[in-house]
């Protein structure tokens, strides 16, 4: 580990395509690719040569190119709600803001551990929702909110559009007094908008 962390600072700066070695001398690891037996870098980063385990990898200096993966925690805005499903526009993956968005689907069976009667008691269009990706099959990202940290983090009054307040398991509009239902995350309303 100490070898790795020192390599992050002192390793050779490499660009995509730069030659790192041949497969006869090293095992190619993260951030590399092999072409005709030669190991090349595939990102901008620092080359790490692990002489003990005979591994070569590239520690990336560029944060980017994020797509939702199984297990990633995503933030998005609910765009459509039906009795069984809700769709949402994912605009943040693992704290990284996206320039575009991905579409995710939350099914009623993945909302809570216990039974949920209707999706309309979970979220409403416009809400900001935190969820976890549980499957990327069938060209869609399937989401889950089965955790106390997951769920709606910001919700808006259906009648007047004001931000709802969470008080004793209840969502209440401070302006018009309307009471609504949501599957709220533990830190509801705490994050900056």
């Amino acid at each position, binding site marked *: 580990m100490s070898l790795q962390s020192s390599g992050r600072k002192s390793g050779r700066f490499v660009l995509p395509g730069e030659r790192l070695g041949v497969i006869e001398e090293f095992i190619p690891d993260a951030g590399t690719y092999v072409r005709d037996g030669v190991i090349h870098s*595939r990102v901008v980063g620092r080359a790490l040569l692990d002489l003990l385990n005979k591994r070569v990898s590239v520690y990336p200096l560029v944060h980017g190119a994020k797509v939702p993966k199984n297990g990633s925690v995503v933030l998005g805005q609910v765009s459509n709600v039906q009795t069984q499903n809700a769709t949402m526009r994912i605009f943040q993956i693992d704290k990284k803001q996206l320039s575009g968005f991905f579409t995710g689907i939350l099914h009623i069976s993945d909302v809570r551990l216990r039974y949920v009667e209707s999706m309309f008691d979970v979220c409403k269009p416009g809400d900001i929702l935190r969820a976890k990706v549980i499957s990327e099959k069938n060209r869609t990202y399937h989401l889950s909110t089965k955790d106390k940290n997951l769920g709606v983090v910001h919700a808006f009054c259906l009648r007047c559009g004001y931000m709802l307040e969470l008080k004793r398991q209840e969502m209440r509009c401070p302006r018009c007094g309307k009471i609504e239902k949501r599957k709220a995350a533990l830190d509801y309303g705490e994050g900056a908008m």
Partner: protein
Amino acid sequence: MSRKPEKLIDKKGLRLDGRKPDELRPIKIEVGVLPNTDGSAYIQQGKNKILAGVYGPRELHPKHLALPDRTVLRCRYRMAPFSVQERKSPAPSRRDIELSKVIREALEPSVFLEYYPRTGIDIHIEVLQADGGTRCASITAASLALADAGIPMQDLVTACAAGKVDNTIVLDLMDTEDKEGGADVPVALMPNLNAITLLQMDGILSLEEFEKAANLALEGCRKIYPMQKEALKAKYVSVKEVEE
């Protein structure tokens, strides 16, 4: 307006702007100039001033364009109305559309498209000022923008043109030379893999001349590559070491 000069190469063998036949124009490259994009680059090559910005990979719209096994690379090359001496219509011209395709095809082999199935990557190239050889400068900048966006790539792409002016093979043609000269050979190269991703020819050259021009253009690419590397280094080394 520009008059046609009588001689493009003087008695001493120097060109209109005082360059030797195998000399590049001064090049300035900067990476990460547009914070609203995922990756960007700016290049100044002689009087060319070009911005390239990359978005993605992100969900592709319209959705039916998405491919199940790889990402779709889209490229949009445009010239600003004030980029040339007479105002250019801001509507995309046939040339803009063709160059968008040419640039995309020159960059495509360098990107690992299969890493992000069902998504799209958009490259936007804006020519602010044009002075010949914009397609090559655009490719050089767009490739840097892709690397800046953190998209996995086989190699960077570097591009440079060579051509024939007054019966001499010269490197990196500027606008007058391009228009009045005999021929133009733009080449794009992946320098580490030594693979050519673009090779065009406009004009008439003999076989020997073509070979000489192509080799000169490749030499130009190899001179530009270190500048690309320096530009990326300037952004990513010392300034900020990205945390976990």
